[in-house]
């Protein structure tokens, strides 16, 4: 998923079980492939960090924190058009914040 070029990032949007939704990824960046590739890198880092925090919050039973982090994950995923990174039961629609 991590790519250095926009071309690679774009090609990964074309599969049927895709992580990224092509329109969702390219619309916010105005078709800028280089920026899209940079965003994918940022997203991978941020998503990993949020998942770590989410696991810790679950382990400690912090329900409000769990809710906030889950919303945040959803928001970030939808911002970059990556609904495929969310659990299948995630409510469709807007993200957090």
């Amino acid at each position, binding site marked *: 998923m991590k790519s250095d070029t926009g071309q690679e990032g774009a090609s990964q949007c074309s599969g049927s079980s895709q992580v990224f939704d092509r329109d969702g990824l390219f619309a916010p960046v105005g078709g800028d492939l280089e920026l899209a590739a940079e965003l994918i890198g940022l997203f991978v880092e941020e998503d990993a960090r949020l998942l770590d925090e989410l696991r810790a919050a679950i382990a400690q039973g912090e329900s409000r924190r769990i809710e906030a982090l889950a919303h945040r994950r959803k928001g970030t995923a939808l*911002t970059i*058009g990556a609904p495929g990174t969310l659990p299948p039961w995630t409510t469709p629609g807007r993200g957090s914040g």
Partner: protein
Amino acid sequence: MKVLVAEDDPVLQRILEAHLRRWGYEVTLARNGLDASRILESPDAPRLAILDWILPGIEGPELCRRIRQQGNEPYTFLLLLTARSETEAVIKGLESGADDYLVKPIDPHELRARLQAGERILELQDQLIAVRERFRYQAMHDSLTGVWNRGAILEALARELVRARREDSHLGLLMLDVDHFKRVNDTSGHPAGDAVLRDLGRRLRGGLRAYDAVGRVGGEEFLIVLPGCNGSSARSIAERLRAAVASQTMGRPEFALGVTVSIGVAACQGGCIEANVLVRMADAALFRAKRSGRNRVEADPEPDPLPHQAA
């Protein structure tokens, strides 16, 4: 134009930053509400701000409320960014002080249009402030000489009397009048008289301390408020001003005129005298200066004695 982007999601922050830079904005970034607040309160702060609703530290709506409570001028255009599109949330956001509202995921075209609308509002506000400041200046200044007008100098006197009362300090007042000014107008014409008054205003301003105030109260009559000056020092300043005026010609080169002034001095300590009484004292002293031959300084009552002169 500078724009603040307060957004804790690094992905969205980068998207916003990339678009804004491409559109020619100078972008300042914050990842939490505390940093955003600090940036918006700093000198030369961005006047356009995109604030995420949910921010660590201080949330977007609270940030909007704080900025509006401070009533900063010039105005800051605040655009709230949120996923909450329901009417209730929109109302809450706008009531907190936001000017506009953008729902995620953002559409760059919509963002740009909303920022342009914000810029139009800021530009309009700048124009209104400029006009207001021009009117304010005109309402308080004498258009011919550029010094305070009658109302403004009397206000300055009242204000300084209150301060003198509070601090038990001295206050000096000078009433200055151009000698034989009617003769200047009659023999050299009104343009020459105007040039003399303009020149006099400039010289008086130049000869005083930054916190002294000078105003034109009548045709050729000026009032000068001297905070912290007792009678002796007010009289010294008056003498210096009189000598400076008498030593050089005034007006334009084509009708340079020798002009003198007479000055009446009054002073008090602790603001114990009403403004109109102090003005009458200075005026009485000015009358004595005129009656005693003009181009003179007189004090009424006599200024406080210098320490070595005290009994």
